[in-house]
C-alpha cells in the first residue's frame, strides 16, 4: 500500500488542489446560494476532506502509520471513521435545525 502511494507524484496534487479550491466554493455558491446552511457545511467538509486526506496519505506514504501493525490498523480506522462521524453528526444537526418548526415568528 505504502509503496504504491510512494509512487504518487505529489507535485501533481498542488495544481489539482488549487483548481478545486477555486471552483468548488464558487460551484456551491452558484448552485445552493451563500445563505444556504449546506453551503457552509460542504465548504467545511469539502476542504476538510482534502485536509484530512492529505494527512492520511502522508502518514501512509512515510510509513508513520504501518497497517501491518494491529494497533496502527485500529487507529487508522478511527481516523477515517472520525471524519465521517463529525460529517454525519453535523449533517443531522442541520437537518433537525431546518425541519422542526420555529415558534418565535411574530
Amino acid at each position, binding site marked *: 500500500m505504502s509503496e504504491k502511494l510512494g509512487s504518487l507524484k505529489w507535485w501533481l496534487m498542488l495544481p489539482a488542489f488549487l483548481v478545486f479550491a477555486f471552483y468548488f466554493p464558487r460551484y456551491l455558491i452558484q448552485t445552493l446560494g451563500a445563505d444556504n446552511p449546506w453551503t457552509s457545511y460542504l465548504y467545511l467538509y469539502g476542504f476538510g476532506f482534502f485536509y484530512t486526506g492529505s494527512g492520511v496519505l502522508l*502518514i501512509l506514504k512515510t510509513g508513520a502509520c504501518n497497517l501491518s501493525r494491529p*494497533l496502527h490498523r485500529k487507529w487508522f480506522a478511527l481516523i477515517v471513521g472520525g471524519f465521517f462521524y463529525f460529517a454525519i453528526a453535523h449533517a443531522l444537526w442541520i437537518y433537525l435545525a*431546518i425541519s422542526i418548526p420555529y415558534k418565535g415568528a411574530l
Partner: protein
Amino acid sequence: MDSFGIELENGSIIAIAIVAVVYIAVITAFGGYFARFNKNINDFFYSGNRFSWWLPAASMVATGIGSYSYLKYSEQGYNTGMSSTMTYLNDWFLAPFFLFGWLPIIYFARIKSVPEYFERRFNRTARYISLTIILAYMFFYIGYNLYTIGVALEGMFGVPQLYSVPILAAFLGAYVTFGGQTAVIFTDLFQGIMLYVAGGLAIFAGIYALGGFDEWWAYLPVNHRLPFVHLTDNPMFNSAGLFWGEALAGSIAFTFMNQGFLMRYLTIKSVNEGRKAAFFNVMVTLPVSAVIVGAIGWIGKSLVIKQTVTGGALAGYEFVDIQNTFHTFIIVCWATVKHNAWIFGFIVAALMAALMSTIDTLINACAAIGIYDLYKPLIKPEASDEHYLKAARWASIITTFIGLLLVIWFHAQKGSLMSIHYKGIMIIIPAIVTTIFMGAFWKRFNATAACASMILGSIVTVITVWFPDVIDPLAWFLSGPQNGIYIYFRALFGMLITAVIGFVITLLTSHRDDKDVTGLTIDTLDEAMHSYKGGEPNHEVGKKVYEMQVKKDESIQADWIEVAPSAMTTLKARDGDLLYMTDSRWWLGGLRSYHVKVKTNKALGDKDIAMSTPTFEEAYFLPGKAVTLEKII
C-alpha cells in the same frame, strides 16, 4: 467600568464571595499536596511520563476552557446561535498529522519543549526565534485570562482589577510553584468536574425556566440552531474564515505548539495512550465543552424571543434584558437561578475554576520553557536536580508576575474581548505553526529556511495589519469574505507566505545542510522508537498482567524488573522490552508507577515481580499494594 447589568445586594455579594474564596482555598490546598510527588524537574514538569490516558485527558477539559470562554462563547451563542460551537468541532481534520506525526515525534525523541525540538531539528538560532514567538503566544494567553477574570469580577462586584487580579494570581502561583505538573493535572481534573457541574447547573436552570428542551428549541430562530454561520457575511465570525484561520492555523497552534497541552501529552505513559487522550479530547471533551460554554447564549436568545412572543417576563422570573451581549452569561444565569446567591456563587466559582485551570497549565508550561530552554542551556548547564527544582519554582513565580504585568497592557487595549483575542492570536501563530509543520513533515526543510520563514513570515503577517488589501486576492480565490477585515484569513495568508519562503529557501540552500534529523521527522519514526527503547521495538500486542506482588531483590539493577515466564508470555514480551508497572488501583491514574525493562526469571512465581528498592521508590509504590504490568514496546 461597565456594570454587568445585574444588581447585587450586600448579602448576595457576601454569599458569592464566601463560595468563591472557599473554593479557591480548597484548590490551593489540594494542589499543594502534590508537591511530594516531585523529586526532580522531570517529575515537576512531566510527572515522570507515568499517567494513564484518562487522567490528562479529563484534566484537559478544564485547561481548554478559559475564564474568557464562558463570557465570550455565551456572547457568541447569543449573537449567532449554536454556530458558537464551530471553533470546538473542527479539530478532527488535524488527527492524522497529530496522532501519527507530531505526537510520536516529540514523545520518542523525548522532546521537552518546542524550542528544544527546533534546536535538535535545525539549530540554536531557530530555537531562540521559536522561543520568542511561543512565549509571546503563552504570555498572551496568561495575561488575557487574568484580564478577563478581572473584567468579570469588576463588572459583577465592583472590585477593581488592581486588587482582584494580583490576589487570584498569588493563589494560582502558590500551588503551581509547589505542586508542579502533577498538581496542575489533579487540580484541573477536579476543576473540570466543577466546570461541567456548574455549567450543567446553569444550563438546567435555563432550560427549566424556558419550560423544557422542546420550548427552548422551538423558540430558537432557525439560523441560531445551525452548526455553521453564513459562509462570508460577518467579518468577525464566518464559516470560510473559521475553517482557514481556526481549523487550520488555530488548531495546529493549540495542538502542536501550546506547550501546556504538549506537556500534558508528555505526562502520559505511552504514545498509544497519548492517542487515546487526543481521541477523547476531540471526540468527547471538545463537543461537551462547546455546549457548556455556549449554551447560556442559546438559552438567552430563546428566552428573550419567548418573552417577546408571550408579551413579558416568563412566569416566576424577572424580565431578562440583555443590552450588552458580553454580559449574556452573567445576566441569564442570575435571572434563571432566581437570584439565588449561593447557586450563583457556585457558578462564579466555576468562572474562577476556568481561569485557574487554564493559567496553571500555562504558568507551568512557561516555567518549563524557562528552565529547559533558557536557564539550563544558557545559564547553568550542570547542576543538581535539587537546584533545577528550586529554579523551576522560581520560574513559576516569575512567569506569574509577567502575566500580571501584561494585564496592564490588555487594560489599555480597545475593542471587544473576542476581537482582542483573535486579532492577537492570528498574528502571532502563522509563521511558527507553518515552520513546525514543515519541520516535522518535510525532511529536506533546513535550518536556514526555518529561521528565515519564522522571521520573514512573522514580519509579513504583522504588516498586513496596516495593509490588509494584500489579503484580498487570497480571500477572493477561496471565496472568503472580501470586506477588508481579515482576522482569520490573515492567519492563512501568513501561513502561505511562510510556506513559500520556507520552500524557496530550502530549494536554494538544501545542498548546504547535512544535519542528522533521524527521529525528528515523520519518515524516521521507526528509528525514533528504536532509540527511545534502546533496542528493537516489539510490536506484538500482549495483555496486561494484574495483581502482581512485589518481591524486593537488591541484586537487580535499578530500572529493571524480573518476572516469571508465564507473565512474559501473557505480556508477549521479550527480555529487554520496555514495560510499564503501576499500582493496581486504576483510579490513581498512574500516580504510583514507573517504566522499566524486563528480564525473565524462572525462579519466580506467576504473580511475582522482583525489583530493587530504588526502582520501588521511583515508582512511588506502597508496601503490600498489588502491581499491574503492561508492555509498552
